[in-house]
Protein backbone atom coordinates (compact mmCIF):
# COMPACT_ATOMS: atom_id res chain seq x y z
CA UNK A 1 0.00 0.00 0.00
CA UNK A 2 1.28 3.44 -0.93
CA UNK A 3 1.56 5.79 2.02
CA UNK A 4 2.67 9.39 2.18
CA UNK A 5 5.64 8.32 4.26
CA UNK A 6 6.74 5.79 1.66
CA UNK A 7 6.31 8.26 -1.20
CA UNK A 8 8.43 10.87 0.57
CA UNK A 9 11.01 8.25 1.49
CA UNK A 10 11.24 7.13 -2.09
CA UNK A 11 11.50 10.74 -3.32
CA UNK A 12 14.29 11.45 -0.86
CA UNK A 13 16.14 8.42 -2.20
CA UNK A 14 16.42 10.11 -5.58
CA UNK A 15 19.77 11.60 -6.48
CA UNK A 16 20.04 15.26 -5.43
CA UNK A 17 16.88 15.33 -3.32
CA UNK A 18 17.74 16.35 0.25
CA UNK A 19 14.32 16.20 1.90
CA UNK A 20 10.60 16.54 1.32
CA UNK A 21 7.37 17.32 3.11
CA UNK A 22 3.67 17.66 2.43
CA UNK A 23 1.80 20.62 3.91
CA UNK A 24 -1.64 22.14 3.76
CA UNK A 25 -1.73 25.56 2.15
CA UNK A 26 -2.45 27.12 5.51
CA UNK A 27 0.90 25.88 6.76
CA UNK A 28 0.01 22.69 8.61
CA UNK A 29 2.56 19.91 8.31
CA UNK A 30 1.05 16.62 7.10
CA UNK A 31 4.13 14.43 6.65
CA UNK A 32 7.83 15.04 6.34
CA UNK A 33 11.10 13.36 5.56
CA UNK A 34 13.54 16.11 6.32
CA UNK A 35 16.96 15.57 7.85
CA UNK A 36 18.48 18.00 10.35
CA UNK A 37 19.36 20.84 10.45
CA UNK A 38 16.19 21.68 8.53
CA UNK A 39 13.03 22.23 10.52
CA UNK A 40 9.88 20.88 8.89
CA UNK A 41 7.49 23.15 10.82
CA UNK A 42 9.42 26.31 9.89
CA UNK A 43 9.69 25.26 6.28
CA UNK A 44 5.96 24.45 6.21
CA UNK A 45 5.07 27.89 7.58
CA UNK A 46 7.15 29.89 5.13
CA UNK A 47 6.48 27.77 2.07
CA UNK A 48 2.73 27.92 2.68
CA UNK A 49 3.00 31.72 2.63
CA UNK A 50 4.61 31.51 -0.78
CA UNK A 51 2.02 29.04 -2.06
CA UNK A 52 -0.78 31.32 -0.86
CA UNK A 53 0.83 34.36 -2.50
CA UNK A 54 0.90 32.45 -5.78
CA UNK A 55 -2.62 31.04 -5.61
CA UNK A 56 -4.18 34.36 -4.54
CA UNK A 57 -2.76 36.17 -7.54
CA UNK A 58 -3.38 33.33 -9.97
CA UNK A 59 -7.01 33.10 -8.85
CA UNK A 60 -7.42 36.73 -9.86
CA UNK A 61 -6.05 35.78 -13.26
CA UNK A 62 -8.63 32.99 -13.52
CA UNK A 63 -6.15 30.18 -12.82
CA UNK A 64 -6.95 27.75 -10.02
CA UNK A 65 -3.66 25.94 -9.55
CA UNK A 66 -0.01 26.33 -10.42
CA UNK A 67 2.16 23.47 -11.60
CA UNK A 68 5.29 24.14 -9.57
CA UNK A 69 7.47 26.90 -8.20
CA UNK A 70 11.21 26.42 -7.93
CA UNK A 71 13.35 28.77 -5.87
CA UNK A 72 17.09 28.74 -6.13
CA UNK A 73 19.45 30.00 -3.48
CA UNK A 74 23.20 29.76 -3.22
CA UNK A 75 22.87 26.54 -1.23
CA UNK A 76 19.87 24.67 -2.56
CA UNK A 77 16.70 24.56 -4.61
CA UNK A 78 13.23 24.46 -3.11
CA UNK A 79 10.38 22.97 -5.13
CA UNK A 80 6.74 23.68 -4.33
CA UNK A 81 4.26 21.51 -6.20
CA UNK A 82 0.57 22.41 -6.05
CA UNK A 83 -1.61 19.46 -4.99
CA UNK A 84 -4.85 21.41 -4.64
CA UNK A 85 -5.48 22.13 -0.99
CA UNK A 86 -2.03 20.90 -0.10
CA UNK A 87 1.46 21.20 -1.50
CA UNK A 88 4.53 19.01 -1.85
CA UNK A 89 7.77 20.71 -0.83
CA UNK A 90 11.11 19.25 -1.82
CA UNK A 91 14.64 20.41 -1.08
CA UNK A 92 17.29 19.61 -3.63
CA UNK A 93 20.99 20.15 -3.96
CA UNK A 94 21.75 23.29 -5.96
CA UNK A 95 23.97 21.28 -8.33
CA UNK A 96 21.54 18.39 -8.79
CA UNK A 97 20.40 17.48 -12.28
CA UNK A 98 17.23 19.56 -12.69
CA UNK A 99 15.63 17.13 -15.12
CA UNK A 100 16.20 14.13 -12.87
CA UNK A 101 14.86 15.96 -9.80
CA UNK A 102 11.85 17.22 -11.75
CA UNK A 103 10.94 13.70 -12.83
CA UNK A 104 11.28 12.33 -9.28
CA UNK A 105 9.12 15.14 -7.87
CA UNK A 106 6.52 14.75 -10.63
CA UNK A 107 6.25 11.02 -9.88
CA UNK A 108 5.97 11.67 -6.15
CA UNK A 109 3.26 14.29 -6.68
CA UNK A 110 1.27 11.87 -8.83
CA UNK A 111 1.62 9.11 -6.24
CA UNK A 112 0.47 11.45 -3.49
CA UNK A 113 -2.56 12.47 -5.51
CA UNK A 114 -3.36 8.79 -5.96
CA UNK A 115 -3.25 8.13 -2.24
CA UNK A 116 -6.27 10.42 -1.98
CA UNK A 117 -5.35 11.41 1.54
CA UNK A 118 -4.40 14.94 0.85
CA UNK A 119 -7.75 16.70 0.72
CA UNK A 120 -7.76 17.68 4.36
Amino acid at each position, binding site marked *: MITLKSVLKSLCGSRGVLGALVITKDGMLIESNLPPPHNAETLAA*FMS*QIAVTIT*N*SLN*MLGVKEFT*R*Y*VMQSGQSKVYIVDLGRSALIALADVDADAGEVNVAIFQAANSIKKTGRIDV
Partner: protein
Amino acid sequence: MAEKSDLKDSPAAMALAYGSIAKSLHGVGERALALDLLDRGIRKFPNVSGIYIAKGEILVSVYNSDGKLDFLKAALFSFEHALKLDPQNYLARLLAGQIYVKAGKTVRAKELIAGILETNPEDQRALSLMNAIKDRELKTPAQAPAPPDAEPKAEAVVEESPAISAKDVGPVPSVDTPIMASGEIKPGGGGEDDEDDEGEIVVAQAGSSAWSLDEKVVIGGHEDTENEIAHEELAAKLTLFSKLDGLMAIFLLDQNGQPIKMINKAKLDVNITPSLIFNLHNASINGIRRTGLGSFQRGVLVTPIGTFIIANAFYATLGVVVENDANMQAVEARIQRYLGDISS
Protein backbone atom coordinates in the same frame (compact mmCIF):
# COMPACT_ATOMS: atom_id res chain seq x y z
CA MET B 1 11.51 52.21 -32.82
CA ALA B 2 10.77 49.31 -30.54
CA GLU B 3 9.78 51.78 -27.83
CA LYS B 4 7.39 53.53 -30.20
CA SER B 5 5.80 50.27 -31.20
CA ASP B 6 5.33 49.29 -27.53
CA LEU B 7 3.61 52.55 -26.79
CA LYS B 8 1.37 52.28 -29.78
CA ASP B 9 0.37 48.69 -29.09
CA SER B 10 -0.17 48.63 -25.38
CA PRO B 11 -2.56 50.78 -23.35
CA ALA B 12 -0.65 49.74 -20.25
CA ALA B 13 2.62 51.01 -21.69
CA MET B 14 0.85 54.24 -22.65
CA ALA B 15 -0.56 54.57 -19.16
CA LEU B 16 2.92 53.95 -17.78
CA ALA B 17 4.25 56.73 -19.99
CA TYR B 18 1.55 59.10 -18.74
CA GLY B 19 2.52 58.33 -15.16
CA SER B 20 6.21 58.72 -15.84
CA ILE B 21 5.82 62.05 -17.69
CA ALA B 22 3.47 63.35 -15.01
CA LYS B 23 6.01 62.54 -12.30
CA SER B 24 8.70 64.35 -14.26
CA LEU B 25 6.42 67.37 -14.65
CA HIS B 26 5.67 67.30 -10.96
CA GLY B 27 9.38 67.01 -10.25
CA VAL B 28 10.03 70.32 -12.01
CA GLY B 29 7.20 72.04 -10.19
CA GLU B 30 4.49 71.70 -12.86
CA ARG B 31 1.97 70.02 -10.61
CA ALA B 32 -1.11 71.40 -12.39
CA LEU B 33 0.15 70.10 -15.71
CA ALA B 34 1.05 66.78 -14.11
CA LEU B 35 -2.40 66.28 -12.65
CA ASP B 36 -4.06 67.41 -15.86
CA LEU B 37 -2.03 64.88 -17.82
CA LEU B 38 -2.96 62.10 -15.40
CA ASP B 39 -6.65 63.01 -15.57
CA ARG B 40 -6.46 62.74 -19.34
CA GLY B 41 -4.60 59.45 -18.99
CA ILE B 42 -7.27 58.10 -16.64
CA ARG B 43 -10.00 59.03 -19.10
CA LYS B 44 -8.14 57.14 -21.82
CA PHE B 45 -7.07 54.16 -19.73
CA PRO B 46 -9.54 53.81 -16.87
CA ASN B 47 -8.63 50.19 -16.19
CA VAL B 48 -4.91 50.48 -15.54
CA SER B 49 -4.12 50.63 -11.82
CA GLY B 50 -0.70 52.22 -12.28
CA ILE B 51 -2.08 55.51 -13.49
CA TYR B 52 -4.27 55.89 -10.39
CA ILE B 53 -1.27 55.10 -8.22
CA ALA B 54 0.84 57.69 -10.04
CA LYS B 55 -1.88 60.28 -9.44
CA GLY B 56 -2.15 59.25 -5.80
CA GLU B 57 1.61 59.57 -5.34
CA ILE B 58 1.61 63.09 -6.78
CA LEU B 59 -1.35 64.08 -4.62
CA VAL B 60 0.42 62.69 -1.54
CA SER B 61 3.51 64.63 -2.50
CA VAL B 62 1.44 67.83 -2.85
CA TYR B 63 -0.11 67.15 0.55
CA ASN B 64 3.33 66.57 2.06
CA SER B 65 4.55 69.95 0.85
CA ASP B 66 1.38 71.98 1.31
CA GLY B 67 -0.58 70.19 3.98
CA LYS B 68 -3.94 70.60 2.26
CA LEU B 69 -6.13 67.70 3.26
CA ASP B 70 -8.25 67.63 0.14
CA PHE B 71 -5.21 66.33 -1.69
CA LEU B 72 -4.82 63.52 0.78
CA LYS B 73 -8.45 62.58 0.43
CA ALA B 74 -8.19 62.60 -3.35
CA ALA B 75 -5.03 60.49 -3.10
CA LEU B 76 -6.92 57.95 -1.03
CA PHE B 77 -9.63 57.85 -3.67
CA SER B 78 -6.96 57.11 -6.31
CA PHE B 79 -5.37 54.34 -4.23
CA GLU B 80 -8.71 52.70 -3.50
CA HIS B 81 -9.53 52.79 -7.19
CA ALA B 82 -6.18 51.15 -7.94
CA LEU B 83 -6.91 48.47 -5.35
CA LYS B 84 -10.20 47.64 -7.03
CA LEU B 85 -8.21 46.85 -10.16
CA ASP B 86 -5.25 45.25 -8.39
CA PRO B 87 -6.15 44.16 -4.85
CA GLN B 88 -2.62 42.95 -4.04
CA ASN B 89 -0.83 46.13 -5.11
CA TYR B 90 1.91 46.81 -2.56
CA LEU B 91 2.26 50.57 -2.96
CA ALA B 92 -1.47 51.26 -3.07
CA ARG B 93 -1.96 49.19 0.09
CA LEU B 94 0.94 50.88 1.89
CA LEU B 95 0.03 54.47 1.02
CA ALA B 96 -3.70 54.00 1.49
CA GLY B 97 -2.87 52.32 4.82
CA GLN B 98 -0.88 55.36 5.93
CA ILE B 99 -3.69 57.72 4.98
CA TYR B 100 -6.29 55.60 6.77
CA VAL B 101 -4.12 55.67 9.89
CA LYS B 102 -3.95 59.43 9.69
CA ALA B 103 -7.70 59.46 9.23
CA GLY B 104 -8.19 57.29 12.29
CA LYS B 105 -9.64 54.46 10.20
CA THR B 106 -7.44 51.84 11.76
CA VAL B 107 -9.65 48.89 10.85
CA ARG B 108 -9.23 49.48 7.14
CA ALA B 109 -5.57 50.42 7.63
CA LYS B 110 -4.91 47.14 9.43
CA GLU B 111 -6.70 45.18 6.74
CA LEU B 112 -4.50 46.71 4.04
CA ILE B 113 -1.25 46.37 5.95
CA ALA B 114 -2.06 42.81 7.07
CA GLY B 115 -2.37 41.93 3.38
CA ILE B 116 1.21 43.08 2.82
CA LEU B 117 2.49 41.24 5.88
CA GLU B 118 0.76 38.05 4.79
CA THR B 119 3.05 38.01 1.77
CA ASN B 120 6.10 39.44 3.46
CA PRO B 121 5.99 39.40 7.27
CA GLU B 122 9.27 41.30 7.40
CA ASP B 123 8.40 44.26 5.23
CA GLN B 124 9.84 47.07 7.32
CA ARG B 125 7.49 49.78 6.13
CA ALA B 126 4.42 47.66 6.70
CA LEU B 127 5.72 46.50 10.07
CA SER B 128 6.42 50.00 11.33
CA LEU B 129 2.98 51.14 10.20
CA MET B 130 1.34 48.16 11.90
CA ASN B 131 3.31 48.93 15.08
CA ALA B 132 2.20 52.55 14.91
CA ILE B 133 -1.41 51.39 14.61
CA LYS B 134 -1.00 49.09 17.61
CA ASP B 135 0.71 51.83 19.65
CA ARG B 136 -2.12 54.13 18.83
CA GLU B 137 -4.68 51.54 19.86
CA LEU B 138 -2.85 50.96 23.14
CA LYS B 139 -2.90 54.67 23.93
CA THR B 140 -6.60 54.83 23.18
CA PRO B 141 -8.86 54.68 26.22
CA ALA B 142 -10.99 51.55 26.18
CA GLN B 143 -14.19 52.10 24.28
CA ALA B 144 -17.40 50.22 24.21
CA PRO B 145 -17.33 47.67 21.40
CA ALA B 146 -18.48 49.26 18.21
CA PRO B 147 -21.17 47.67 16.09
CA PRO B 148 -19.68 45.77 13.15
CA ASP B 149 -20.68 48.46 10.69
CA ALA B 150 -19.40 51.35 12.76
CA GLU B 151 -16.51 51.97 10.45
CA PRO B 152 -17.79 52.85 7.02
CA LYS B 153 -16.64 50.62 4.22
CA ALA B 154 -13.65 51.90 2.31
CA GLU B 155 -15.80 52.53 -0.72
CA ALA B 156 -18.16 54.64 1.36
CA VAL B 157 -15.29 56.66 2.72
CA VAL B 158 -13.74 57.41 -0.61
CA GLU B 159 -16.99 57.82 -2.48
CA GLU B 160 -17.30 61.35 -1.25
CA SER B 161 -13.70 62.21 -1.95
CA PRO B 162 -13.13 65.26 -4.08
CA ALA B 163 -11.73 64.54 -7.50
CA ILE B 164 -8.75 66.85 -7.31
CA SER B 165 -7.63 67.93 -10.72
CA ALA B 166 -5.33 70.46 -12.26
CA LYS B 167 -7.77 73.32 -11.83
CA ASP B 168 -7.84 72.76 -8.09
CA VAL B 169 -4.14 73.27 -7.75
CA GLY B 170 -3.90 76.90 -6.87
CA PRO B 171 -2.62 78.81 -3.90
CA VAL B 172 -2.57 76.48 -0.97
CA PRO B 173 -2.13 76.97 2.74
CA SER B 174 1.40 77.18 4.04
CA VAL B 175 2.96 74.20 5.71
CA ASP B 176 2.32 75.80 9.07
CA THR B 177 -1.41 75.98 8.52
CA PRO B 178 -3.14 73.56 10.86
CA ILE B 179 -4.43 70.70 8.78
CA MET B 180 -7.71 70.80 10.67
CA ALA B 181 -8.56 73.99 8.81
CA SER B 182 -9.42 72.21 5.59
CA GLY B 183 -13.00 71.90 4.46
CA GLU B 184 -15.12 69.03 5.65
CA ILE B 185 -12.25 67.02 7.02
CA LYS B 186 -12.38 67.12 10.76
CA PRO B 187 -9.54 67.26 13.23
CA GLY B 188 -8.95 64.07 15.10
CA GLY B 189 -6.03 62.74 17.04
CA GLY B 190 -7.99 61.77 20.09
CA GLY B 191 -7.32 58.19 19.24
CA GLU B 192 -10.87 56.97 19.52
CA ASP B 193 -12.10 58.05 16.16
CA ASP B 194 -12.65 54.73 14.48
CA GLU B 195 -16.31 55.14 15.06
CA ASP B 196 -16.66 58.59 13.54
CA ASP B 197 -19.88 59.37 11.82
CA GLU B 198 -21.00 59.73 8.24
CA GLY B 199 -17.88 58.35 6.67
CA GLU B 200 -15.93 61.58 6.73
CA ILE B 201 -12.22 61.27 6.88
CA VAL B 202 -10.88 62.44 10.20
CA VAL B 203 -7.23 63.27 10.22
CA ALA B 204 -5.10 63.68 13.28
CA GLN B 205 -4.37 67.28 14.09
CA ALA B 206 -0.91 68.54 13.21
CA GLY B 207 1.41 68.21 16.13
CA SER B 208 -0.94 65.93 18.01
CA SER B 209 0.88 63.78 20.50
CA ALA B 210 -1.79 61.10 20.42
CA TRP B 211 0.09 59.03 17.91
CA SER B 212 3.58 58.69 16.68
CA LEU B 213 3.38 58.80 12.91
CA ASP B 214 5.09 61.63 11.14
CA GLU B 215 2.74 64.11 9.53
CA LYS B 216 4.01 63.26 6.08
CA VAL B 217 2.86 60.24 4.14
CA VAL B 218 6.06 58.48 3.19
CA ILE B 219 6.20 57.24 -0.37
CA GLY B 220 9.80 56.03 -0.25
CA GLY B 221 11.75 54.01 -2.76
CA HIS B 222 11.81 55.53 -6.17
CA GLU B 223 11.99 59.20 -5.45
CA ASP B 224 15.64 59.89 -5.98
CA THR B 225 17.38 60.73 -9.21
CA GLU B 226 20.07 58.08 -8.81
CA ASN B 227 17.41 55.36 -8.85
CA GLU B 228 15.71 56.91 -11.86
CA ILE B 229 18.97 56.81 -13.82
CA ALA B 230 19.55 53.19 -12.78
CA HIS B 231 16.00 52.31 -13.82
CA GLU B 232 16.51 53.86 -17.23
CA GLU B 233 19.64 51.80 -17.72
CA LEU B 234 17.90 48.60 -16.63
CA ALA B 235 15.01 49.31 -19.00
CA ALA B 236 17.29 50.15 -21.93
CA LYS B 237 19.07 46.80 -21.64
CA LEU B 238 15.84 44.82 -21.97
CA THR B 239 16.47 44.90 -25.71
CA LEU B 240 18.67 41.87 -24.96
CA PHE B 241 15.43 39.87 -24.84
CA SER B 242 14.34 40.83 -28.33
CA LYS B 243 13.67 37.88 -30.62
CA LEU B 244 13.67 35.44 -27.71
CA ASP B 245 11.51 32.51 -28.81
CA GLY B 246 8.48 31.95 -26.63
CA LEU B 247 8.69 35.32 -24.88
CA MET B 248 5.29 36.41 -23.60
CA ALA B 249 6.09 39.40 -21.42
CA ILE B 250 8.74 41.19 -19.41
CA PHE B 251 7.99 43.27 -16.33
CA LEU B 252 10.69 45.40 -14.78
CA LEU B 253 9.46 46.68 -11.42
CA ASP B 254 10.80 49.26 -9.00
CA GLN B 255 11.29 48.79 -5.24
CA ASN B 256 7.61 49.49 -4.70
CA GLY B 257 6.46 46.99 -7.28
CA GLN B 258 5.47 49.65 -9.79
CA PRO B 259 6.37 48.94 -13.42
CA ILE B 260 9.41 50.73 -14.78
CA LYS B 261 9.01 49.04 -18.14
CA MET B 262 6.59 46.46 -19.54
CA ILE B 263 6.82 44.47 -22.72
CA ASN B 264 3.56 42.60 -22.86
CA LYS B 265 3.33 40.62 -26.07
CA ALA B 266 0.84 38.11 -24.64
CA LYS B 267 -1.41 40.84 -23.23
CA LEU B 268 -1.27 39.49 -19.69
CA ASP B 269 -3.24 41.36 -17.06
CA VAL B 270 -1.18 44.50 -16.44
CA ASN B 271 -2.67 45.09 -13.00
CA ILE B 272 -2.43 41.65 -11.41
CA THR B 273 0.70 40.25 -13.11
CA PRO B 274 3.22 42.84 -11.85
CA SER B 275 1.86 42.44 -8.31
CA LEU B 276 2.16 38.66 -8.58
CA ILE B 277 5.82 39.00 -9.61
CA PHE B 278 6.67 41.59 -6.97
CA ASN B 279 4.87 39.89 -4.09
CA LEU B 280 6.26 36.48 -5.01
CA HIS B 281 9.77 37.90 -5.22
CA ASN B 282 9.44 39.40 -1.74
CA ALA B 283 7.85 36.28 -0.27
CA SER B 284 10.61 34.14 -1.77
CA ILE B 285 13.42 36.32 -0.42
CA ASN B 286 11.87 36.16 3.03
CA GLY B 287 11.02 32.45 2.88
CA ILE B 288 14.47 31.36 1.75
CA ARG B 289 16.25 33.51 4.31
CA ARG B 290 14.05 32.59 7.25
CA THR B 291 14.37 28.87 6.61
CA GLY B 292 18.17 29.11 6.65
CA LEU B 293 18.60 28.24 2.99
CA GLY B 294 20.83 31.18 2.10
CA SER B 295 19.79 34.03 -0.11
CA PHE B 296 17.22 33.90 -2.88
CA GLN B 297 18.61 34.07 -6.39
CA ARG B 298 15.95 33.00 -8.84
CA GLY B 299 12.36 31.77 -8.91
CA VAL B 300 10.66 29.82 -11.69
CA LEU B 301 6.88 29.53 -11.49
CA VAL B 302 5.18 27.17 -13.92
CA THR B 303 1.47 27.85 -14.42
CA PRO B 304 -1.11 26.98 -17.07
CA ILE B 305 -0.74 30.49 -18.55
CA GLY B 306 3.04 30.45 -18.82
CA THR B 307 6.33 30.18 -16.97
CA PHE B 308 7.40 33.14 -14.85
CA ILE B 309 11.09 33.64 -14.14
CA ILE B 310 11.68 36.06 -11.29
CA ALA B 311 15.04 37.56 -10.42
CA ASN B 312 16.55 40.42 -8.54
CA ALA B 313 17.93 43.05 -10.92
CA PHE B 314 19.79 45.36 -8.53
CA TYR B 315 17.47 48.33 -8.11
CA ALA B 316 14.53 46.39 -9.50
CA THR B 317 12.66 43.12 -9.80
CA LEU B 318 12.75 41.38 -13.16
CA GLY B 319 9.87 39.13 -14.24
CA VAL B 320 10.17 37.33 -17.56
CA VAL B 321 7.16 35.31 -18.74
CA VAL B 322 7.64 32.68 -21.43
CA GLU B 323 5.51 29.98 -22.98
CA ASN B 324 5.65 26.67 -21.13
CA ASP B 325 7.29 24.94 -24.07
CA ALA B 326 9.97 27.60 -24.54
CA ASN B 327 13.57 26.50 -24.50
CA MET B 328 14.40 27.21 -20.87
CA GLN B 329 18.14 26.97 -21.43
CA ALA B 330 17.92 29.76 -24.00
CA VAL B 331 15.73 31.80 -21.66
CA GLU B 332 18.13 31.26 -18.75
CA ALA B 333 21.08 32.22 -20.92
CA ARG B 334 19.35 35.44 -21.93
CA ILE B 335 18.52 36.31 -18.33
CA GLN B 336 22.09 35.59 -17.23
CA ARG B 337 23.36 37.84 -20.00
CA TYR B 338 21.00 40.61 -18.95
CA LEU B 339 21.95 40.32 -15.28
CA GLY B 340 25.63 40.18 -16.24
CA ASP B 341 25.30 43.26 -18.43
CA ILE B 342 23.55 45.37 -15.83
CA SER B 343 26.12 44.48 -13.20
CA SER B 344 29.08 45.43 -15.37
